[in-house]
């Protein structure tokens, strides 16, 4: 009898996580509070059980996440015995870089990309796990599991290594680092099935509830706190919505839904006829923006 696909994916991910822990000096796991991060952290706990996970979680905080995400983050780290590190870009905070006054591109670059690089430098991490999957976007289909970054954290597309079998080449020079994607072979459906099977807790924003919403440029945006700047004529109204992906609340589009439980969310997802990233406002800015962001070090 062979393993089920979820068992096989889980085993593969654990193999990758252990290999990095064994070969790198100072790894870290990027934690974005979303469901993929939740699965990744769960896999890390499994990889080192009965021991503790031998590296910390890092949340790169733009300070504009949903309030429910912050609550969830604290509880998640505490209950699962993780060491949590949080970093925000101090210059960005000083200049009050926010998603209203700045274009989403500039905002993301300063508050996410730069902040991440600062954090990696500050703590000297040489390997950073991320929860990205190859099925997320056409251009990610060719991504390696180990993605190499030079001393300046730049990703050089011509300088990536072929990956054969499960033999990962973890040799790096001083100052170089890798990003590791243990869930490369998972799909969105696999992730949800796994969350369901394993009972992994997720932020309640994934489930439908009545929430204060304004409709802006065709997106349903939640008014999550008093910092939200309403445009003239906008008044929040309560609508039953949920989120397919979670990020900074002013940049995350909700969808109208009645799915209040995990099975219902999965059912809706299976019947959905549009892809996941449609809800991500930041992608609309530019085509092929993923590629560019990656080169700059966002992933």
């Amino acid at each position, binding site marked *: 009898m062979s393993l089920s696909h979820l068992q096989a994916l889980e085993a593969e991910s654990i193999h990758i996580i252990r290999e990095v822990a064994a070969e790198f000096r100072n790894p870290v796991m990027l934690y974005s509070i979303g469901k993929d991060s939740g699965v990744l952290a769960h896999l890390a706990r499994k990889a080192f*059980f*009965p021991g503790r996970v031998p590296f910390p979680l890092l949340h790169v905080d733009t300070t504009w996440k949903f309030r429910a995400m912050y609550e969830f983050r604290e509880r998640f780290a505490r209950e699962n015995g993780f060491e949590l590190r949080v970093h925000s870009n101090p210059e960005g905070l000083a200049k009050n870089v926010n998603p209203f006054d700045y274009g989403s591109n500039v905002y993301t670059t300063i508050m996410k990309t730069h902040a991440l690089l600062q954090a990696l430098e500050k703590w000297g991490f040489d390997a950073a796990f991320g929860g990205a999957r190859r099925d997320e976007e056409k251009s990610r289909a060719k991504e390696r599991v180990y993605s190499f970054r030079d001393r300046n954290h730049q990703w050089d597309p011509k300088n990536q290594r072929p990956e054969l079998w499960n*033999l990962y080449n973890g040799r790096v020079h001083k100052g170089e680092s890798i990003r590791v994607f243990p869930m490369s072979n998972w799909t969105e459906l696999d992730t949800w*099935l796994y969350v369901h*099977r394993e009972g992994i807790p997720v932020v309640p924003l994934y489930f439908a509830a009545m929430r204060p919403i304004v409709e802006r440029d065709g997106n349903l945006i939640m008014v999550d706190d008093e910092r939200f700047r309403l445009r003239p004529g906008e008044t929040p109204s309560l609508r039953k919505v949920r989120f397919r992906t979670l990020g900074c609340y002013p940049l995350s589009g909700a969808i109208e839904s009645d799915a209040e439980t995990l099975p219902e969310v999965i059912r809706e997802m299976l019947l959905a006829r549009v892809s996941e990233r449609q809800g991500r406002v930041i992608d609309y800015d530019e085509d092929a923006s993923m590629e560019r962001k990656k080169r700059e070090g966002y992933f």
Partner: protein
Amino acid sequence: MFDRSLVSGDIEAYLERHEKKELLRLLTCGSVDDGKSTLIGRLLHDTKLVYEDQLAAVARDSKKEGSTGGELDLALLMDGLKAEREQGITIDVAYRYFSTEKRKFIIADCPGHEQYTRNMATGASTCDLAVILIDARKGVLPQTRRHSFIVALLGLRHVVVAINKMDLIDWSQDVFERIRADYQAFVARLDIPDIHFLPISALRGDNVVDPSAHMPWWQGGPLLAHLENVHVGADRNLADLRFPVQYVSRPNPDFRGYAGTLASGTLRPGDEVLVVPSGTTSRVKRIVTFDADLDEARPPMAINVTLADEIDVSRGDMLVRPGNLPRIERDFEAMLVWMSEEPLAVDRQYFVKHTHTLVSGSVAKLYYSVDVNTLEQKPAVTLGLNEVGRCQISLARAIPFDAYARNRATGAFILIDRVSNATVGAGMILRRESGPERGRSFWEVEPASDLLRRQTSPVSGDERAQRLGQKPVTLLLTGLTGAGKTTLAYALERRLFDSGRQVLVLDGENMRLGISRDLGFSSVERSENLRRAAEVARIANQSGLICICSLLAPNESVRERVRETIGAERFLEIYLSAPLEVCRARETGGMYARADAGEIAQFPGVSAPYDVPAAPDLVLPTHELDVDACVDRLVRLLESRGTI
């Protein structure tokens, strides 16, 4: 999979089903324009995995840039990569995902043809099955051979040959059959046990997901049905326990676990295990996982194993079963795929990564390179990007490994450049006995240095003969297992010893318990066992002894070499001529039974030839004469030669 019944149906039951699906990893290969992208697009589209926004974009692009005259061009779904190829970005493999009720599929899709060998080897390394596309108008091309060679090289056991664009040849069964026959004719040389042929039209969707209405002559079902049902479970090696230790887990003083991925075999609490290379043994105490302790672990589970004894085990060590060991050596032969712009430098030091071991090593010898289009072997001094060759690897220290054909996980390695850290080569370890050239080399290997000089004894042969009252000679008793070689050897020794002679017996089985403990039973290893016996016999003869060799020695040309080594004037070849049936009936050790069952390969008389000696010095029909009568004849032979 997006069956509409989901709207009303029982979602929990649905989830339950989908959480238990199997996983199949497959590779698609074809030359440019054979329709690979169209085929993958078709699989995704017809299994309803394409979202409306994606489909709308493809429909829009089909009008603008499609190759289908405005019709939906599903190849555009795979488009993410084309732009990058134009920018000169290296893409080895793109991975695609889709699933059905039965299985989740991971497709390794290797675009481009310039980097084909490297890309395909990379893609194939994780796959169970390959779909090889052939354009029905073109038939079997050199590329088809190349793809098939690489698939076989990487050890894939299942191939689907999809003959595409059937719509353009009028759905002709004749053409399909002709291509099938062509393919079968050349693939016979490669070791691919399961090959399945299919006529399809990726563009029109015939025989991809749905059966074709245009080919009533085809009863074999569509591609997807085959992919859903092909049995790959038996490919897993469950016979040889190999657990490479990846991570030593010591969370507290009371717990010491060895974490890793089970490469092959099965593991249960209580099992006796041997740690290689150290050789210490212990028993499995627990197989720990986050969910619960396991009663049994199967590959490729990620587990954490504790042992009953406190012994020293580190990352890179391997847990195996006593009595079923991997090879533990510094040198091995391998097929090597070169993956770097910078060519291979023979004798240069690289890093070799094998399981969880990183060790220095070099390519000590390059035997030949293989032309991937014609499969011809040609002499080579180096390997360039995308070249494949057979070589000898020499490591700084011994590691445990198996032949790739037997065990992918413990037979694969990568080579890493020590300066750039790039992955420059991918290797597959070969069985020791493979290839006749290796067999010859045992006999023909030159001494390790030309500074070595043969030392000679001040005691002459005549002096020895006088002292011992005998002239030295070597008798080779050859014949099938059960012919009576050992019995006769010792009976003759007794008779000679009792009459005051000095004798040495070299028995094949005894050799294998000691001096040849590292050898198996392949013809090459038998030959090597004989070579060692011959060298020892020569030394014995030089010291004045009579030497009796009881060895199967099935091969005439190898026996000739023995004669040369010892010297024709001192060599007597005795053939024990009992026929196979008699030998079988007599033999009590169970060797024939095991050979019949295929457990011992290349067994002379059963699965390998025994060359009856052409001109033996004596034939002994051991099925007609008793032992004493045989010994009498041997003594007479020795007397007639003036030995005694």
